[in-house]
């Protein structure tokens, strides 16, 4: 179980993420959707442990991220936004480095590394320097780094960013194949991705979670039955809430 309880973050005087709570169970693929700047990446960073929340708690399979950080992080795989990589390394050496840092032995790396390379279809470029790779390959190398250690929780920030349609299809198939027994949390603003992949949609707007439902329930919010329209309906509701005059006590 991935349990998020009252997780919040402020940047200076601005609220990055308002206290948010939700629970994800193994087998679920949850999509975190919202416009740019809504707080999706901040939320994922806090869950991955690369950003300390101001308040709240993250529990990964029973391990508290604050007090048992290393045990919790050992169970998670994280693909950060824009796929940051070491350009001077090759995909093989990069994934090998991540596995070694996670405490894998040479024998274990010899098993896990080829599997990660083949799952993400980067074997042809495994020994090329990362700086020479296309954006699509870079994205897949970062993805391979996130899943190489076979994590129970996968946190993916824009996993199909920069991929062509064929690569997107392959990545989505891979995410779906990884789903049984795992918790997958994906941040995206591509609604197609939600309908293609997710069993649950968490909508975040101005750092506030304003919806947590199945894609079907979100689609059913409007008569058209389209996911896009359901999302816009939530957006409009949020916008009218922001525009409403404050109630002043007499």
């Amino acid at each position, binding site marked *: 179980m991935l349990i998020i309880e009252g997780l919040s973050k402020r*940047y200076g005087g601005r609220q990055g993420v308002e206290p948010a709570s939700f629970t994800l169970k193994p087998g679920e693929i949850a999509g975190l959707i919202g416009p740019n700047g809504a707080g999706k990446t901040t939320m994922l*960073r806090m869950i*991955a*442990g*690369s*950003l*300390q929340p101001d308040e709240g708690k993250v529990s990964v399979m029973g391990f508290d991220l604050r007090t048992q*950080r*290393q*045990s*919790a*992080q*050992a169970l*998670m795989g*994280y693909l*950060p*936004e*824009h796929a*940051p*990589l*070491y*350009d*001077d*390394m090759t995909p093989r*050496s990069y994934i090998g*480095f*991540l596995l*070694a*840092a*996670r*405490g894998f032995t040479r024998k274990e790396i010899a098993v896990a590394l080829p599997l990660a390379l083949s799952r993400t279809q980067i074997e042809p470029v495994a020994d090329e320097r990362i700086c020479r790779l296309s954006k699509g390959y870079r994205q897949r190398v970062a993805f391979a*780094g996130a899943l190489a250690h076979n994590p129970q929780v996968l946190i993916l920030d824009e996993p199909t960013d920069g991929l062509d349609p064929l690569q997107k299809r392959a990545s989505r198939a891979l995410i779906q194949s990884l789903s049984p027994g795992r918790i997958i949390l994906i941040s995206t603003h591509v609604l197609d991705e939600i309908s293609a992949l997710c069993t649950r949609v968490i909508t975040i707007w101005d750092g506030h979670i304003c919806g947590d439902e199945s894609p079907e329930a979100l689609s059913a919010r409007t008569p058209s039955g389209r996911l896009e329209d359901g999302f816009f309906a939530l957006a409009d509701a949020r916008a009218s809430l922001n525009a409403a005059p404050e109630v002043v006590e007499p």
Partner: protein
Amino acid sequence: MRFWQGFWAIYRRELFQDLTHPVAYVFIAGFLSASVLATFQLGGLFEAGRADLSSYFQFHPWLYAVLMPALAMRTWSDEVRRGTLETLLALPVSRAALVLAKFAAAWTLVALMLVLGTTLWLGIALLGPVDHGATLVGFCGSFLMAGAYLAIGMAASAASSSQAMSFVIATSISVLLTAAGLPIVSTIFAGLIGDQAALMLCALSIQDHFDGFQRGVIEVRAIVFFMSLIAAWLAVTFLFVTNKRVGGL
């Protein structure tokens, strides 16, 4: 166990990065040529008529005050610029292992640089009888002192996401700590901050603590001083890295 696994993985990666980057070779060549030039031109090695390397070591503090910040400036600010710090912080590796591994890798490069510098030792040994023990102490002291400058540079790199800014900060602190023992500097400080404060600042002089090593004398006081300086600045680095986790990303 997990501490060392993370430490070694990051140490190897950092060392690999340093050794495959042309900047490292420019840095080593810069140190070797500047130190040899200073030894012969400013130190007057031949004019002294003695086969010892004290004139070689006497310029090390000043060279390190500039070169170590240059070596250290990329360590953290580059990770922030590339976004890879986020990947590192999401690994189940302790922050202490992360800081120590990066420091150890850079310090290893300094060791390599000093090993290459021993060619001068061999050259002088051909000219006359050299006190090998004293020279070895000089090299060990220089290595220890370089670690202190490196730790200052790493703290500055962790404090700023700009390499130029971290270089300026680290060089300023390094030059201040190097010059603190000079009589003219202590006089200026005494006028500015009072005699007691100036005395305390002068007690932190890197140059003064290196003097013993330069003459081939092992001083426990100096070893403790340099180790404390390294520990203190690495602790500052640790705090900055933890702070980046808090809100700097």
